[in-house]
């Protein structure tokens, strides 16, 4: 039965059409800004630029994650279904990561070349993005889940979530220079995969329970 749910998840995201691509365009445009601003020596901080752009792109695509479920009342039915909410939320987060964050990773080598990055650095950069973006999605989803009840659209999500993005950014960018922090990033990923879906369901239940 879960397969039909996943199938419909994918159908629904494909039906959203062009808006799936906007974070990708946002990502590329931000990265292209830096060479204009800093000129050629953008190459020195290129991994940092790509990482900050990825972080902002994820943040942009995350804050309306649960608002649609909340407004239409789907959240109540997700809660009432025999599947545990953690399962359903994990499916939703996985499909969200595939549609929004995976394209960023796929396109990042092209942008790396744009910033004159040598190929081995691009390879490690892609690995760090592969390990890091799920953590970004998970923490962003937690912030989005906490804010489902709030009507006025405020810039609260970045303020709430960015403190938790800082460690990911530190380990992600430093993994390129010192290989020692790549396992740390992996540990952070495993930790957040283990604990955050549960916390997201609690946040959703708190939102529904008022």
């Amino acid at each position, binding site marked *: 039965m879960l397969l039909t749910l996943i199938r*419909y998840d994918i*159908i*629904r995201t494909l039906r959203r059409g062009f808006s799936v691509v906007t974070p990708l365009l946002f990502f590329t445009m931000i990265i292209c800004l830096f060479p204009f601003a800093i000129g050629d020596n953008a190459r020195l901080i290129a991994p940092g630029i790509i990482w900050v752009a990825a972080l902002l792109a994820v943040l942009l695509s995350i804050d309306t994650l649960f608002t649609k479920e909340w407004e239409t*009342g789907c959240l109540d039915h*997700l*809660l009432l279904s025999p*599947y545990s909410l953690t399962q359903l939320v994990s499916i939703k987060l996985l499909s969200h990561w595939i549609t929004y964050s995976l394209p960023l990773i796929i396109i990042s080598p092209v942008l790396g070349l744009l910033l004159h990055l040598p190929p081995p650095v691009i390879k490690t950069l892609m690995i760090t993005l592969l390990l890091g973006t799920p953590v970004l999605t998970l923490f962003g989803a937690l912030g989005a889940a906490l804010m489902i009840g709030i009507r006025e659209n405020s810039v609260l999500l970045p303020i709430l979530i960015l403190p938790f993005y800082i460690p990911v950014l530190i380990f992600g960018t430093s993994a390129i220079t010192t290989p020692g922090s790549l396992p740390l990033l992996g540990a952070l990923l495993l930790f957040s995969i283990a604990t955050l879906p549960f916390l997201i369901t609690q946040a959703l239940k708190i939102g529904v329970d008022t």
Partner: protein
Amino acid sequence: MSLSIDNLSFSRDERCLFDNITAILQPGQWCDVRGANGSGKSTLLRVLAGLIKPDNGHVTLPPFHYIGHALGLQPTLTVFEQIDWQSALLNEKIKKDALHDAIDLVGLTSMKNAFTTQLSAGQQRRLRFAILHLIPRPLWILDEPYTALDVSAQHVLHSLIEAHLQKKNRAIIATHHAMKINIPPAHTIQLEGQSCY
């Protein structure tokens, strides 16, 4: 499976919505929840459905269907896919022709491939009724099922509820005015939204 509610009470922001509500429903009976707007009807039903934890009190329910004010339909799915998705959510395997019969029963045959957003509020509620009919559950919890229904839709609702009760099932319905069905409610819970102090 027994259905018992014993001394349920809930207060929100220091305003007591309801206090020690007790009710037992035998198979084939239905319970009516009455009260003015904002007297906590929807909250009581959401507490019964388990979406809201009551301050104290205990509820035991058989498996149930819950329809609230917001119908919980995915906007970007067609009518056919919507029912398929909702039944997958309830982990129920349904045959395609049973699905088509349900859509015909509630009168949405012409809109089978229309998106849920293109449906009117009444038609969306008919879609919910199709799911009620398709997946049998011993208890229905309906929150003001009458909103936005035209005459033919009300007729469909009455026949569904009567068939449901005849099959020894139970229902808890929050309404404004009397339900025009032939079986009288076994219990009526009147909510005034009194203050707790």
